[in-house]
């Protein structure tokens, strides 16, 4: 295995994160891939196991997972200043471009051509969002195959109930998420020491 590169300087860390941010088009998946390439494959500062563990922590943290991941990797490689330069590198250049694009859009939005193009682009962004949701649903469907129809049905009910609660009842997200966490803890907690569990002994560490 390749030897770990020496710890990066603040400036190097900033440049790596800036290049990750500026190269990632089309969102999360490409950013994650670029981070893996830079920090695991190129410089060997992280192992894939470590990366996966950090990622799991980010998923349960509020907000954008990738920004949280930037905080954790930044801390590991440079302490508090590592966090600061990593966040600045990932966010400032790409946020500036996003902001300038929005400003440009505001200048030209009333032109008929722009309006027409946008009427095509906006439904497509809805479709992309649906795909993001579909990707999130895949592991649940897979798990449902193992756990049975009731599990799959119960999961679908919670998903649809959350969507309808927002769309029709306009219930605040602040209530929806803790509510779903509560329902999940109540109905979807793995049963202790289930004799059917094949891969992992979920009950052992209670």
């Amino acid at each position, binding site marked *: 295995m390749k030897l770990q590169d020496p710890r990066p300087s603040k400036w190097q860390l900033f440049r790596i994160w800036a290049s990750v941010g500026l190269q990632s088009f089309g969102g999360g998946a490409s950013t994650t891939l670029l981070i893996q390439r830079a920090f695991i494959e190129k410089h060997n500062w992280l192992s894939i196991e470590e990366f996966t563990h950090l990622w799991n922590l980010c998923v349960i*943290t509020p907000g954008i997972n990738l920004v949280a991941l930037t905080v954790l990797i930044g801390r590991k490689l440079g302490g508090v200043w590592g966090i600061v330069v990593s966040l600045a590198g990932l*966010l400032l250049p790409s946020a500036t471009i996003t902001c300038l694009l929005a400003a440009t859009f505001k200048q030209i939005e009333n032109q008929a051509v722009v309006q027409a193009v946008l009427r095509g682009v906006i439904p497509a962004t809805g479709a992309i969002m649906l795909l993001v949701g579909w990707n999130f649903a895949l592991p649940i469907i897979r798990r449902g195959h193992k756990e049975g129809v009731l599990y799959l049905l119960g999961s679908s009910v919670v998903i649809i109930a959350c969507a309808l609660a927002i769309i029709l009842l306009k219930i605040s997200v602040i209530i929806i998420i803790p509510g779903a966490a509560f329902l999940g803890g109540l109905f979807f907690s793995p049963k202790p020491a289930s004799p059917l569990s094949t891969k992992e002994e979920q009950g052992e560490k209670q």
Partner: protein
Amino acid sequence: MINPFIYFLLFLKASLFSTGGFSNLPSLHQDLIANGWAKESYFGQSIAIGQISPGPNGLWVISLGYLTFGYAGAFLALIAITLPALLVLVVSAGYIRIEHRTWVQGAMYGVSLAVIGLLLSVVWTILHQPGVDWKGLLIAAGAFGLALSRKVNILIILGLAGLVGYLVYR
């Protein structure tokens, strides 16, 4: 008139009660529309701009900030999506102690279900924008098919959708 302090708190709240880049949309949609600080069309536009600009998906909020409140809005939005990420330091300190409790796993599963529900409501919000008619829904269906196949880059899909929009609606 937009009150910058409340405006910032609304963005911060949306970010704190979300996970992933888009699940802050329902909260922002509810609050900004209720205050009269955003037009319905801003949401679809912001996401479209976010998709064609570099960086994590969650940066779509920057363009929502700009469209609603200019450069100040973009700046406040940036701070609001950055601060909650620091909570990961607290999470990483506390998680080790509780990760093996079964109720934690169940609760996390519940949250992941809610996130999918949130995303469905985002899809609904976008496809209910003014200007999305049945032709728009056809474009959405086509784009979904292309994206699902994973053979076509997202930027190309958006470009094609824009081209179709230009040809159909000009």
